[in-house]
């Protein structure tokens, strides 16, 4: 192996630089670290009776546009409601009478939170609470109710 010192240093340098570049590519482009780590924003809180299949980091959409992500999901042990913290990207403002509902994209698609702003002039600030919420639809309950109704009307005949 007749490789002089500077050529060897150069090759190892290229290898290490390209390797670290690959890790950075995975972190930034694939893992989207920039958007998760440093995206400035503010937090809103919403209480739901049932969140259905909502998961952490699920998108928050207004008019179909992603405006934030679900940051944490907890259970309030006094009211037994789910407390969902939403992180809204800086630059998006929502009225104080905004309705938050849990929606599903398609029949089996991802669960997300939809925000429908109202006509109030006041805006929700950091740490604000979304007063009006609509729970997620639990398919099993819906089917159960449908069958129950069918049986009830059928029995009355």
């Amino acid at each position: 192996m007749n490789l002089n010192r500077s050529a060897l240093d150069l090759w190892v340098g290229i290898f290490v630089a390209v390797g670290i570049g690959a890790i950075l590519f995975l972190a930034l482009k694939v893992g989207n670290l920039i958007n998760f780590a440093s995206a400035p924003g503010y937090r809103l809180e919403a209480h739901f009776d049932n969140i259905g299949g909502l998961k952490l980091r699920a998108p928050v959409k207004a008019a179909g546009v992603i405006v934030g992500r679900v940051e944490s999901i907890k259970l309030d042990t006094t009211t037994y409601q789910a407390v969902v913290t939403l992180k809204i990207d800086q630059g998006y403002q929502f009225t104080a009478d905004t309705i938050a509902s849990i929606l599903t994209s398609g029949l089996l698609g991802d669960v997300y939170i939809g925000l429908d702003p109202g006509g109030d002039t006041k805006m929700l600030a950091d740490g604000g609470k979304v007063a009006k919420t609509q729970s997620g639809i639990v398919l099993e309950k819906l089917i159960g109710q449908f069958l129950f109704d069918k049986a009830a009307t059928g029995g009355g005949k």
Partner: protein
Amino acid sequence: MLDTVAAGLLHVLRRVGGRTIAIIGWLGYATRFSFAVVRETPAAFSRLNLTLREIYFSGVLSLVIILVSGLFVGMVLALQGYDVLQRYGAAESLGVLVALSLVRELGPVVAGLLFASRAGSAITAEIGLMKATEQLSAMEMMAVDPLAHVVAPRFWGGIISMPLLAALFSTLGIFGAYLVGVKLIGIDSGAFWGNMQAGVDFRYDIVNGVIKSIVFGLAVSLIAVFEGYDAKPTAEGVSTATTRTVVESSLAILGLDFVLTVFMFRGVG
């Protein structure tokens, strides 16, 4: 009659005992060797040119096979993944499928297996041949510690190269999937990258994948230098040691991968 049975029983017990002691002795030797190599870490970094040379041999020279394999694995994953996903109308999820498969599993594991057969076997053969030609003994005669000069640089060269190679494998794989999925099949480029970015988490997926590749690099390097150092100083001994390195490293990678996956990916982050 009773005497022969008793004698036979004693013989069997003696065999079992002898094997057990041999195995424990071998394990103790391997452990002491590992500690001795780790203790020579400062030597590997104070003589940086030796370690750089090993990074060149095990890292830079493995680049071609790693890059080409990564590209083809990514392209095949994209073709196969698309075939299944489009049955469920979820072809847009191809990006996240490929990225998660590569970053979590295929990148570290396949790069590790290639690294074991490309670089691990070479390290074992080199050290084994140095032992067979009594170069290691000659070093000891000159009060030069072969652990510090020969073993530790190879050990650290392997550990440093492996995570970089695994990351390059994953990157080329994702690029291959992009070529096939977006350029050839015609999936929307925005959906490909968008779903990937939404589905891959930095801490949960990428950091765990890098940790896996570091662990595999450590296992392969340790096995390679140990088998080389432990080889019988004959032509046959070196060949046996080289084979053992490849077999043991591959099994170690697969076994460790299972254990690490159990601890890393048990629930939804």
